[in-house]
């Protein structure tokens, strides 16, 4: 049931307004805080207000403008998008609080820029989540690239600028591929709107490369172009280079990159490609997802191995993201209902656990200036709350039951079995163990090595979000059967996707 509703636009507008207000009046600390927090909460309110209806099967539509005929900017709230928006707007609240605490020492000008662009990024993320068609998605995807750039180079050091350049080259390259894919899809299907089971399957006319109807080879090309394009942001393995470099940015930005928006945007884009552009039926006939699955496997294992080799905490975190985000891709490429649930659900699972870890890494750096893992001796005793949260997140990634990560692991393995692909189940198990191999030593060091040096208290503005996010990790792992909580949303989203196939 489709309902015209301006709320998606409102959610976007709140973030945009926040950005403008911050830019305009943000030189006052109080106003900056007020705008940022107010917008974060307000937007969360708007987004969550869409939830009950969406769960009841309503789809909110709001077409803004159609500029080339048939191609326009519009918003459409389906459950998958809503889920993503919920995750990012929840995390935005925490990140804002954290950032207020984290950035306190910085110059006003830097802070204004930071909070302004941060709000823009979140606006872009909502745009991605609620995009009605591939073009809208692409627009906000690129907006995200553009708006994260000032954040990545926030420190304006040569290293930051270099990382920023690398980030731009990678993401713009990816954006270019997406654009190419966009053109190919538009040409092949004649439309870009989501919300039909497989745009290409539905509207396949002629192949973009000439030569009669759309064949497997040309579809493969489109698939590859789109997946690689989105894969850059999702940090799929050969395209992940920007992610570790971007670690020079301040911690809230890393959180944004890894948990709130950027990497997720890539993964979400791939979900859209699979579920909305190609559609399950078409993909089931073709064999592309097999390739994607192996790409994901390479990222999962390779990312973990690279993470293992890092001695810098944030770099290790970065590489582990490479590994963990690919769970989403692996799950999505398995093409069965269970795996679909987890592909969506992992957006939240990874987000909350990873953001916890980044927050802790930032708190450590803020409190003691330590960035290397071998400097963390005994820090668990000096910052017990933070490190406890860190441990929870680490255990979640390892896949300890009752935490969010277990749910992911359980469902991916189940999905792999349903897809008759036991080797992916094995990959998940190995990946969980690899996570243990590189996270547990950190935890161990923090707790069981003698304390060295003095660590300043990070304060409640930092500690609060850390604890809250860690609590969310537990919550996500244990609240699967409560209505309107994340898991039920994810599984309802998956059900809708598959129900369309069944029809």
């Amino acid at each position, binding site marked *: 049931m489709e309902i015209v509703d301006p709320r998606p636009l409102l959610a976007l507008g709140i973030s945009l307004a926040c950005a403008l207000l911050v830019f305009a009046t943000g030189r006052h600390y109080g106003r900056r805080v007020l705008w940022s927090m107010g917008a974060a909460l307000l937007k969360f309110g708007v987004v969550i207000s869409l939830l009950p209806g969406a769960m009841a099967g309503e789809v909110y539509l709001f077409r803004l403008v159609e500029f080339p005929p048939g191609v326009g900017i519009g918003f459409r709230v389906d459950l998958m998008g809503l889920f993503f928006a919920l995750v990012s707007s929840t995390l935005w609240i925490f990140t804002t609080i954290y950032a207020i605490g984290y950035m306190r020492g910085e110059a006003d000008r830097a802070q204004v820029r930071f909070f302004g662009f941060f709000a823009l990024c979140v606006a872009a993320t909502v745009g991605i989540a609620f995009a009605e068609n591939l073009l809208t998605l692409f627009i906000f995807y690129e907006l995200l690239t553009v708006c994260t750039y000032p954040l990545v180079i926030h420190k304006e050091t040569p290293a930051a600028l270099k990382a920023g350049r690398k980030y731009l080259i990678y993401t713009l390259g990816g954006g270019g591929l997406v654009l190419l894919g966009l053109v190919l899809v538009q040409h092949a299907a004649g439309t870009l709107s989501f919300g039909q089971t497989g745009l290409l399957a539905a509207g396949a006319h002629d192949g973009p490369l000439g030569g009669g109807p759309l064949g497997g080879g040309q579809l493969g090309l489109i698939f590859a172009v789109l997946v690689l394009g989105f894969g850059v942001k999702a940090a799929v393995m050969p395209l992940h280079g920007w992610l570790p470099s971007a670690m020079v940015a301040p911690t809230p930005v890393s959180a944004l990159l890894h948990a709130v928006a950027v990497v997720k945007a890539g993964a979400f884009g791939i979900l859209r490609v699979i579920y909305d552009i190609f559609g399950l039926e078409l993909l089931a006939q073709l064999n592309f997802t097999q390739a994607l699955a192996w790409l994901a496997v390479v990222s999962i294992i390779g990312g973990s191995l690279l993470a293992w080799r890092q001695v810098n905490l944030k770099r290790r975190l970065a590489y582990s993201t490479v590994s963990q985000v690919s769970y989403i891709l692996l799950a999505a490429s398995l093409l069965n209902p*269970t795996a679909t*649930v987890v592909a969506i659900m992992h957006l939240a699972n990874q987000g909350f656990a990873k953001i916890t870890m980044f927050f802790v890494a930032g708190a450590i750096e803020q409190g003691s200036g330590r960035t290397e893992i071998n400097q963390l001796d005994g820090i668990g005793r000096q910052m017990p709350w933070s490190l406890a949260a860190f441990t929870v997140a680490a*255990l979640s990634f*390892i*896949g*300890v*039951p*009752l935490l969010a990560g*277990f*749910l992911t*692991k*359980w*469902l991916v*393995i*189940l999905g792999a*079995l*349903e897809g008759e692909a*036991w080797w992916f*189940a*094995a990959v998940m*198990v190995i990946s*969980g*163990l690899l996570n*243990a191999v590189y996270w*547990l030593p950190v935890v*161990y060091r923090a707790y*069981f090595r003698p304390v060295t040096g003095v660590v300043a208290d990070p304060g409640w503005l930092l500690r609060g979000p850390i604890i809250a996010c860690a609590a969310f990790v537990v919550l996500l*792992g*244990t609240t*699967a*059967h409560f209505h309107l909580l994340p*898991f039920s949303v994810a*599984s309802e989203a998956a059900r809708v996707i598959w129900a369309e196939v069944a029809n």
Partner: protein
Amino acid sequence: MTQPQNIPKIPAAGYELPLMLLTGLIIAGCWALIPGALAGRAPEFSLLQLAPGAWLLLRIDPLGVLFTATITPLWLLALIYSRGYIGTAHRDRYYLVLMLSLPLALGVAWAGNLLTLLVFYELLSVLSYLLVVHEETPTAKAAAAKYIVYVLVGGSCILLGVVLVFYLVGGQTFAAEPMLHAGLGWGYLTAIFVTLLAGFGVKAALVPLHGWVPDAHPAAPAPFSALLSGVLVATGAFGIIRVTHQVFGVELLRELGFMHWVSPLAAIGVLAAAVAAARQDDLKRRLAYSTISQLGYITLAISLLGQELLVGALLHISNHAMMKATLFFCAGLLLRRAGVRRVSEMAGLARRLPWTMAAFTLAALGMIGVPPLAGFISKWVLGMGTLATGQPLYLLVFMGGSLLAAAYLLPVVYIAYFREPVEEEWKNKAITERGAGWMLIPTLLAAAATVILGVAATAPGLPLSLARVAVSPFW
């Protein structure tokens, strides 16, 4: 020889007594379940849905009740013992984890389905890391690292197996009827069996997956060594019972013939670990190997798929828990009171620590299987079961294991009682049991339990009767 610690009185943390009371209540609660279990009732409680169809579910069946009734008292004993043993360093953490591990162990026992079993089992295992590493000495850390690697790999195996079962037959509750059937195909069944057995086998110290045991036991504080050996390892065996009898079922296993591979493995474990135990000088290491050997008994008994044998296995779980706890308690006393870790350093210690060595002797005899102590009963049942299933060859293994147990435990007793101490080493040392009441009392209680479990084995409500009730539905 390390310096004996002339321990100044350990200041109380203040919460020991409430904890003991709480534990006492839990024990009482567990025991209160016994009548219901004897009547064959198995109430179920759903806790939480983790994933679609994957419920956390408690089902208090006789098997679980037996397990909890046997193991919960060990927590009380360990708590009391800890009051005298654990220093002030990391004490809060120690008690916190110890108390948390109790409900988790209950969860393992009462797990209503495989997922629940996995969840509690994993949490218990991971949590135990903090107890193994408790003393934070380099050896403890190394042992803990080894432990966590084994546990995680094992846990991953279990996870795979559990998901496989879930995929094939859904989140079924444990019941008399086995979950799997031959129609699922040989490949799946093998995969499930291998992953689950390997996973639980790690915990149950099944040779060759036992590597962590001889390191973790000596490293852990004595009260936890007792729990480790008596309970945690037993959870592995318990898991194996669940898998063999409630996931696969006896008939299916017979049909598949997996047990032809497991039994010899377990038998080798019994004998090899016993031989290895005899070669250890470190007392706790020796006891650890003994654990491996004894758990081999249990696994072997399970793998032979006989009703009586299973009764024996369950009986041995509880008896062994009690006896091994006694032994570890004694080892802890020796360490704390005389500073002795090694068997060779124990010469003449029985004069200074008479109660300790008395308890040790009792438990050692029980372990060897001297009637009428607890160990005898379970070994008797096991032996009879072996004959009943027509596999007399394994009777030899059981007997060999007992003989070897004598070979590695009796020398300890002998040295402590009859070898003359080296005079210089005794000078200026106040080796005494005075003031060791907190440690001594649970030791003696456990030793007494060894006797009671032997003498009154057939009393209703004690393990034997419970085990028969618990096992009967499987045949």
